[in-house]
């Protein structure tokens, strides 16, 4: 067994829990959620973001109709896509949690929802700022905007549900049921521009003849790559945080149980002694 001190160093203990002969030679494990994988993805994301700045703000030309406001598209559209990806991850992980009851799926569902919520704020913010110069208003209760706001509220509700003071298993199950609703909601958001009359433009890329080309298309692809790397990096770290939260809860529970047992054992011992001293022993 290994005991962890607050500084993250480890001390050896015997299997019975008694302190061992001295410090173990094992190197100290750094206390964070980083790893070689996150560092590689992180540096790739930094490089991607630098390229996005170059393509999005310098190389890409202004649009004939929208002018330079089109440069918001290079953040807005990829962020919307990764909002959908986060919701998809949460729904799939929620379904797998309900089926397998493996804590990892629960942690992945939570991570996906939280990262998706951040991207939904980015989408709403950049969309509003793009809407003002192109539509003349920051906000309108249009089908696409309203359904995106509903999706954001659903994500916030999901995360609020996860913070309720309930039995962890019941809490995860309730959150997973809500998590299953995310992908159907994403379908509504995505199809809203074709199902209802909308101020929002139609799909730009997901069609046989994309309405974007040249440097603007390259800038958008760089946006997908850079923001995708940022999304991946955030997911890796956030998944590990969710995993650590589960382990910390378990450590707290173990400590509380040990304290209760320690409280109970002297009393039990005293009761046993009373019995031996002449108390009635049940037949």
């Amino acid at each position, binding site marked *: 067994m*290994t*005991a*962890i001190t*607050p500084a*993250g160093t*480890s001390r050896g203990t015997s299997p019975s829990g008694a302190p061992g002969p001295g410090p173990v030679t094992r190197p100290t*494990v*750094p*206390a*964070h*959620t*980083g*790893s070689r*994988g*996150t560092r590689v993805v992180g540096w790739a994301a930094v490089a991607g973001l630098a390229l996005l700045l170059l393509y*999005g*703000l*310098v*190389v890409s030309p*202004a649009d004939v109709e929208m*002018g*330079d*406001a089109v*440069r*918001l598209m290079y*953040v*807005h559209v990829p*962020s919307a896509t990764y909002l959908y990806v986060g919701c998809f991850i949460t729904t799939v992980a929620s379904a797998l949690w309900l089926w397998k009851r493996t804590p990892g799926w629960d942690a992945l569902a939570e991570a996906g929802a939280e990262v998706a919520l*951040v991207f939904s*704020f*980015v989408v709403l*913010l*950049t969309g509003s*700022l*793009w809407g*003002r*110069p192109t539509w003349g208003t920051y906000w309108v209760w249009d089908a696409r905007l309203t359904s995106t706001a509903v999706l954001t509220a659903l994500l916030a509700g999901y995360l609020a549900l996860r913070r309720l003071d309930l039995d962890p298993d019941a809490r995860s199950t309730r959150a997973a049921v809500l998590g299953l609703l995310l992908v159907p909601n994403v379908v509504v958001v995505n199809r809203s521009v074709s199902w209802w009359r909308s101020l929002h433009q139609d799909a730009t890329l997901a069609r046989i003849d994309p309405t974007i080309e040249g440097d603007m298309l390259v800038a958008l692809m760089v946006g997908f790559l850079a923001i995708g790397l*940022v999304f991946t*990096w*955030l997911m890796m*770290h*956030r998944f*590990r*945080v969710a*995993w*650590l*939260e589960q*382990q*910390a809860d378990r*450590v707290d529970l173990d400590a509380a149980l040990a304290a209760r047992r320690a409280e109970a054992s002297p009393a039990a011992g005293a009761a046993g002694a009373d019995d031996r001293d002449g108390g009635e022993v049940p037949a």
Partner: protein
Amino acid sequence: MTGVTATLAMTHAGYVAAGWLASAALIGGYAVSVVRRGRKLSRQVPSEERRWS
């Protein structure tokens, strides 16, 4: 330099700058909070539970 000049002279520059900066602040702030939470929790959990280390 032409690209930089064009960038400085862009139309709707305020909206573009606000959108990009706010997005960077939101995602950057969230990234910092996640890393901090990870560091704090890592100190409470035995190292063998941190499988990525």
